């Protein structure tokens, strides 16, 4: 099966307001997909629908399994998720206990739990936080703890709803490298919901949510190829693409660039 998530013809209303009108969403397996949308485009509502917190008029198919209220527990073993502004949901007094919690009741020995916590915290550079109280951490560290907690069960799908916004660029890029490694080696699929067009450049595929439906879907190269289609959305082009388009207009370059170094090298030969 190529797709990890399929959803067809979904319409959804909050009170009287139509949020989605015949939305089709297909997400490919083993890829990093960014779902882009301006604020108010329904990103968070879509995340809630995917996580079974809200129910729409169509069934969502995750990895071949139709999600109903009855098999939600199965969904939770399949999916790890971090949400927007999830900064006060920690239950335990140390980061270690917080990370170990998802592994409890799963017949892991305490040694195995310790090993898993160590591995994930090392990969995300949060080993030094294990003994600290998660509630007193900086927001950026809280986001890393949330991410570690979502990843520790080895989910097949990771859903991120704006959950990396407090990270500086360097940390964010390290985290994305970790995720890409997991996509390659552990067959993870990442679905990243954001309004940040710059962040979409990290992904393989981009889905643009606009005007209650999916407006564009494709690889990042194809999504950004046609400026006119993109300009119909409420979003703006990422800086490097915007500059590429403007320089192409004056025939100074002949393609879109995704890397500043490459563009500078080609411009000033």
């Amino acid at each position: 099966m190529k797709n990890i998530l399929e959803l067809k013809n979904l319409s959804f209303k909050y009170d009287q307001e139509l949020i989605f009108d015949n939305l089709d969403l297909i997400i490919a397996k083993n890829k990093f997909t960014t779902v882009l949308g301006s604020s108010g485009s329904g990103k968070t509502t879509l995340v809630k629908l995917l996580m079974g917190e809200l129910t729409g008029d169509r069934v969502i198919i995750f990895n071949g399994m139709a999600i109903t209220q009855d098999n939600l527990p199965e969904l939770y073993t399949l999916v790890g998720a971090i949400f927007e502004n999830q900064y006060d949901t920690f239950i335990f007094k140390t980061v270690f206990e917080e990370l170990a919690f998802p592994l409890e009741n799963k017949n892991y020995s305490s040694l195995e739990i310790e090993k898993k916590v160590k591995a994930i915290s090392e990969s995300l550079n949060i080993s030094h936080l294990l003994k600290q109280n998660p509630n007193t951490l900086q927001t950026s560290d809280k986001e890393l703890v949330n991410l570690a907690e979502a990843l520790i069960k080895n989910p097949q799908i990771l859903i991120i709803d704006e959950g990396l916004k407090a990270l500086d660029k360097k940390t964010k890029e390290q985290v994305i490298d970790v995720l890409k490694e997991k996509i390659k080696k552990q067959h993870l699929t990442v679905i990243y919901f954001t309004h940040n067009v710059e962040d979409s450049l990290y992904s393989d595929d981009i889905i643009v949510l606009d005007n209650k439906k999916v407006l564009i879907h494709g690889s990042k190269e194809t999504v950004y190829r046609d400026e006119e289609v993109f300009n119909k959305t409420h979003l703006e082009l990422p800086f490097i693409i915007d500059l590429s388009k403007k320089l192409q207009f004056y025939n100074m370059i002949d393609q879109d660039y995704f890397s500043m170094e490459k563009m500078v090298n080609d411009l000033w030969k």
Partner: protein
Amino acid sequence: MEIKVNHLGYTYNNKTKLKEEVLKDINLEIKDNTIIGIIGSKASGKTTLAKVLALQKLPTDGEIQMGTITVGQKNDRDMIKNLKQQIGFIDEYYYESFIYDTVYNEIEYMLNTHEYVTLNHEKRIKDSLKIVGLSMELLNRHVSTLSQGEKKKLMLAKMLSYNPKIIIIDEPSLDLDKHSQNELIKLLKMMQLRYHKTIILFSSDTDFINRLAEYVYVIENGTVKEQGEKYEIFKNGDLEALDLPLITSFIKLARLKKHAKIEYRDDIYDLMKDVYRSVR
């Protein structure tokens, strides 16, 4: 209103065993009718500084001069109250600050607490929504059904409703998509040029600050590390954990690697013209 900050310090739990000095010896000079950017990484102390300048917390050391009034350690309560009515402040965690159900009530509450007298309450509330670009349909909507971006605009509408002279925003671009950021930039520029507000922006988003501020302070470990015109700061400054604005990184890269003759800019069209001249 002009603001002068002299040797300002702030210590949490002052005079107790748990005391923790967060700000020390901060000096700022903010001229009337300017837009100032104060940048710093997450734990630099800038959020505390924002709160002290907004008089949510009072300085434990040094003083703040606002216009003709000086705020120090011993202050008259009425004086502080009067000053606060002239300051608009949006917290980083603004989304936790809503107490009423509807958008209308949220803005009305602001007018009431700031004792702002209007001839027509309802018109003032509608105008506040209009100026930030929120639709009138939202007037009776429940606040919890708004998106993050709409909530942020609502905070702006609440703040502008009572017409403060000084606008202080902590992390203005957070939660806003680029389109809304552009709208906010236009709105704040208009506030400066047409309504002569003094605007102080605290942010770790250097792209946003680069497009709006004229003068920049860099805060690190609770004190001012650098200050200057924005191009000077972004050109030479050591920003540690902060990222350079994307446009500045591009220009810096071209100048360093290719000795390209292009200037530091804040606008992509200006950059394009420079590149055109330099490459041709």
